[in-house]
């Protein structure tokens, strides 16, 4: 049983920079958790603290029930896959994978069996005698995974393992890692800055920014109910459109007004915001050209700056006031660069944020 708990964990480097502030995070046993966020948000530091490669300045860090603040990496029962693979260049693939077991003084035939089993799963059997230099990026990454697998650790840590691979290989390895997780049934903690990786792989995603957890939930909840502007903007590709709007009272309900557009909403959360400006978030796929979405007033009319045919759908980049708006519409798209287009906002799926606190008012 190896869940991971951070209790009020803080990390301050020697130069006085605090990268993690009061981190509280509970990762369940056998869960696949993705830590995601922009560069410098503290996600790698968090992972390295679990690994024991960074010390914990304050707070408590548990693996299972064991407090591991002062436990050295080798005694934490973890395995880690690094971004640049970190394979020992002077050892063959076999020796790389067997190294940890050799240190544990396992019997030779046990090591042999485990290495071959991992190599079989990862399709590395024919490369066991090669040195890492003679392998491609994808193969090296698989060796790094294999090296972690043979130890049968209770926690698997992966630090941006796919970012050195090309796009096609990345997609392939993504599913391989997901399958590996299902097969091994251990806790996985995966760090990435790529939200696509996060969304596709994680049971739960922890979105971080500036050393603080913004939201920790399942991919679907993150997508549908982002807690704040940061999460809303970070999750989803292309990212959510943000438009400033003024809240007005309209009959029993309220209206969000910007430019010529009026969105009627019947949400009591807006009561305190009458007369104030809020931020309306609309996902690109919630802008529609189809007439059934036109409810009078909920449309924006503007010129198409650029159209990008992506295959089954087309991205329309719109020049609208100060905001840059992107709409995702089905292909073939009847409008092109320079044309005028009218798009309706799906008012059931809008997100509204407080402009000052950036917290969600409702989703």
């Amino acid at each position: 049983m190896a869940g991971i708990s951070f209790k009020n964990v803080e990390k301050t480097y020697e130069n006085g920079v605090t990268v993690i502030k009061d981190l509280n995070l509970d990762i369940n046993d056998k869960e696949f958790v993705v830590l995601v966020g922009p560069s410098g948000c503290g996600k790698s530091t968090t992972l390295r603290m679990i690994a024991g490669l960074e010390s914990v300045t304050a707070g408590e860090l548990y693996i299972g029930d064991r407090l591991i603040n002062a436990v050295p990496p080798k005694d934490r029962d973890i395995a880690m896959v690094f971004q640049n693979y970190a394979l020992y260049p002077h050892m063959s693939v076999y020796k790389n994978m067997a190294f940890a077991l050799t240190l544990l003084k396992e019997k030779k035939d046990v090591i042999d069996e485990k290495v071959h089993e991992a190599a079989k799963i990862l399709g590395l059997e024919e490369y066991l005698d090669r040195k890492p230099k003679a392998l491609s990026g994808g193969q090296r990454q698989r060796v790094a995974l294999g090296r972690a697998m043979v130890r049968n650790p209770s926690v698997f840590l992966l630090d941006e393992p796919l970012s050195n691979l090309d796009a096609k290989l990345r997609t392939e390895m993504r599913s391989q890692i997901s399958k590996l997780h299902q097969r091994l049934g251990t806790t996985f903690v995966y760090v990435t800055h790529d939200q696509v990786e996060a969304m596709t792989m994680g049971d739960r995603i922890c979105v971080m920014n500036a050393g603080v957890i913004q939201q920790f939930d399942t991919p679907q909840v993150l997508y549908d109910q982002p807690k704040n502007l940061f999460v809303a903007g970070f999750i989803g590709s292309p990212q959510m459109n943000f438009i400033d709007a003024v809240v007005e009272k309209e009959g029993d309900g309220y209206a969000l007004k910007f430019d010529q557009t009026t969105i009627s909403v019947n949400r009591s959360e807006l009561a305190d915001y009458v007369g104030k400006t809020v931020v309306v978030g609309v996902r690109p796929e919630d802008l529609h050209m189809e007439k059934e979405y036109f409810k009078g007033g909920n449309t924006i009319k503007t010129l198409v700056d650029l159209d990008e045919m992506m295959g089954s759908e087309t991205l329309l980049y719109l020049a609208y006031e100060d905001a840059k708006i992107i709409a995702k519409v089905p292909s073939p798209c009847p409008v092109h660069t320079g044309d005028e287009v009218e798009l309706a906002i799906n008012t059931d799926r809008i997100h509204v944020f407080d402009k000052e606190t950036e917290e969600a008012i409702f989703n």
Partner: protein
Amino acid sequence: MEVKTSKVRTVIAYIVLLILTFLCLFFFYILIINSTRSHAQIQQGFSAIPGKSFFINLKHVLHDANIPVLSGIKNSLIVSTGAAILATYFSAMTAYGLYAYSFKFRKAAFIFIMLILVMPTQVSALGFMRLMDNMHLLNTLWPLILPSVAAPAVFYFMYSYMQSSLPMELVEAARIDGCSEFRTFNRIVLPIMKPAIAVQAIFTFVMAWNNYFIPALIISENKKKTLPILIAALRSADFLKFDMGKVYMLITIAIVPIIIVYILLSRFIVAGVALGGVKE
């Protein structure tokens, strides 16, 4: 036209290189030729043709009771090999310590080592000799071997090499794999440092082999003398016994191991000289 200029340039380059090669090898040639000539022949002046006294000179050198050549070779080999091993191993370890660990006085330690680098040997020689005397280590080979443990120049080379070729992730991976710190150094870091170690081992070996100053201070017993002291002793022999043929023969014997080392490892030397400076 262009082909012509490039041809001319090639010819000039070859001529310059030939001259340089000649300048480099000429002295070796003279040395070897003179080792085959008798004292009288050498005194007559330069000759490009070998003489017939090679074996006579060799016999004289080997049978001179005052010049124990064989024990000299043995001593030189022990000192040079020992110094090369100690200097490379401990310098790599020191460099690793400063490279891989962050501790309070890391920068100060680095600067301190660099300061030792600019300190001439002569400054500390007298103190060193007295220390060795107090430790009763005069006339032993230890004072010639042990100080190699602290070799700032080798340290600096190792440190630069680590910066360019030893990613910290490897060390971290080893730690997670269950390696102790010492083992990480021996099993992961040292093999990666192999090219740098090879280069520095050669340099240290040659330097220790050629070293005259410190051995001359420390060693006075004939049996413990290294080759450079023996050569010097032979050269300063009294006028009646002075034999240039013998001197040239001994120098020839002394450079043979170095030549062998260079021929065998020249590939490493050329590649390695540029190593430390390269940073990705």
